[in-house]
């Protein structure tokens, strides 16, 4: 396991409880020798499970010999760490300057209406989580939204239903293929 974890567009597996402790035990060795290992380890655990449960925090705290409060403090400081399970697809609406000026708020409104959830929430079917982001560096194509690692550019509210449908379809076909 490479501690720096290359980014993958893979869907997070849904696993909980003991499997977190097992996973952390199985990958902990290189992190123990790594200076400043806490954040890379948390990133690896979140990459695997999609979020950081209390069990995961406890295992990370035990594994690195760090106080639980410190682990908790770091996790809650950074907005990319989530302590609640998230949907298969994390939708982030860029609210950077260029996107804001070109109508990102309307896109966000539309997503909230379409998905019937607020910012930071997950749809009841567990497919989408809606969040906002700080500039994805695609300002030339504003407004943009990012779904997992894919950037959608010059999004207009009218395109939102189609984009969402595309992801729902890809999930269905993935399920049909037994993944």
């Amino acid at each position, binding site marked *: 396991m490479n501690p720096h974890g290359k980014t993958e567009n893979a869907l997070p597996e849904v696993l909980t409880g003991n499997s977190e402790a097992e996973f952390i035990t199985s990958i902990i060795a290189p992190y123990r020798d790594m200076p400043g290992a806490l954040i890379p380890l948390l990133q690896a655990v979140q990459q695997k499970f999609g979020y950081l449960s209390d069990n995961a925090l406890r295992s990370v705290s035990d594994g690195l010999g760090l106080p639980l409060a*410190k682990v*908790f*403090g770091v996790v809650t400081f950074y907005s990319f760490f989530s302590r609640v399970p998230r949907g298969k697809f994390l939708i982030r609406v860029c609210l950077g300057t260029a996107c804001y000026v070109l109508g990102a708020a309307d896109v966000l409104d539309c997503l909230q209406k379409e998905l019937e959830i607020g910012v930071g929430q997950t749809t009841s079917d567990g497919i989408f989580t809606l969040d906002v982001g700080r500039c994805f560096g695609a300002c030339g194509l504003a407004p943009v939204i990012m779904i997992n690692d894919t950037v959608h550019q010059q999004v207009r509210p009218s395109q939102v239903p189609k984009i969402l449908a595309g992801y729902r379809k890809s999930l269905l076909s993935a399920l049909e293929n037994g993944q």
Partner: protein
Amino acid sequence: MILTINGITVEAQTGQTILQAARTHGIFIPTLCYHSQTGPTGKCRMCLVEVVGMRGLQTSCTIEVAEGMVVTTESEALTAARRLVVDLLLASGKHDCLSCEKSGACELQDAAYRLGIERPSFPVEEVEPTDESSEFVYFERQKCIKCGRCIAGCNAVVVNEVLDFAHRGAETKVVCDNDVPMAESTCVQCGQCVQLCPTGALIDKKARGKGRVWELDKVNTTCPYCGVGCQMTLLVDRGRNRIARVTARQVAPNRGTLCVKGRYAYEFPSSPNRLTHPQVRKNGRLENVSWDEALDYTADRIKTIVQRDGPDVFSAFGSGRITNENNYAIQKFTRAVIGTNNVDHCART
């Protein structure tokens, strides 16, 4: 080395901060987050000073002195910055001194007093509820100014590693473990956080309503519980003849720390179950007697038994709760008067 603070030439040691050097020479610089036990963090911005040759305002708690340094601790700009800090903090929670336990010993109140701020210029925030869960520590979050002293004390002084900051920005708060109520956390209730808190956010729960600092007498004493000899101050309510609370003194050997027993198990001096007279059992019942009678009775019994069965039936136990001199006398008496080496002490094992 020599530096100038407010036009006064002062001598300081290498490695000292401007704040330390100023305080050594009786020059007052206000602070909120700095504490000698937890060190500098540069958070509160109260100790800002101006240093010739350095751009902007500098925190005196973090800057080390240098030869020939020229420092100003009072100016219009500095007062404005300090006023901003106190004003913002007063509005950040419910700092209502009228009914606050800490009134009179609160560092935020002192700062407001010195700057002449009566009430904040901004509407007061609503903040998180109080954590009343724990036995001895009352955590009123709405009075927390996020100075971090409790956290530094918990992690670096007593190394219990229970407290830390969580979340960020205006949402920042002090949490126990993974944000559980203090009673459910790994906290051992040593009260170090209370000792260090500059405001009324962390309060000794048992002391609530038992009088504020000016109503209580301060009595310096040694903790009676074990052999370490921790130095502490009892805050005593003379009228009711009771201890209202206990704080640690910043001297050796404990340097501002106490354990849960020393800090919180202080009711025994005024316990109704406490023995206040010598007693001798007569006809199967304990009866109050005079000291002379009690001592004569004890001496007679020891003499009789030792004469009958020999000195080795005698054994003496010293105690951590008495002085070294007392303990010395016990062993001397046992060896020289009784003639046995059966001497032991509660702190030996």
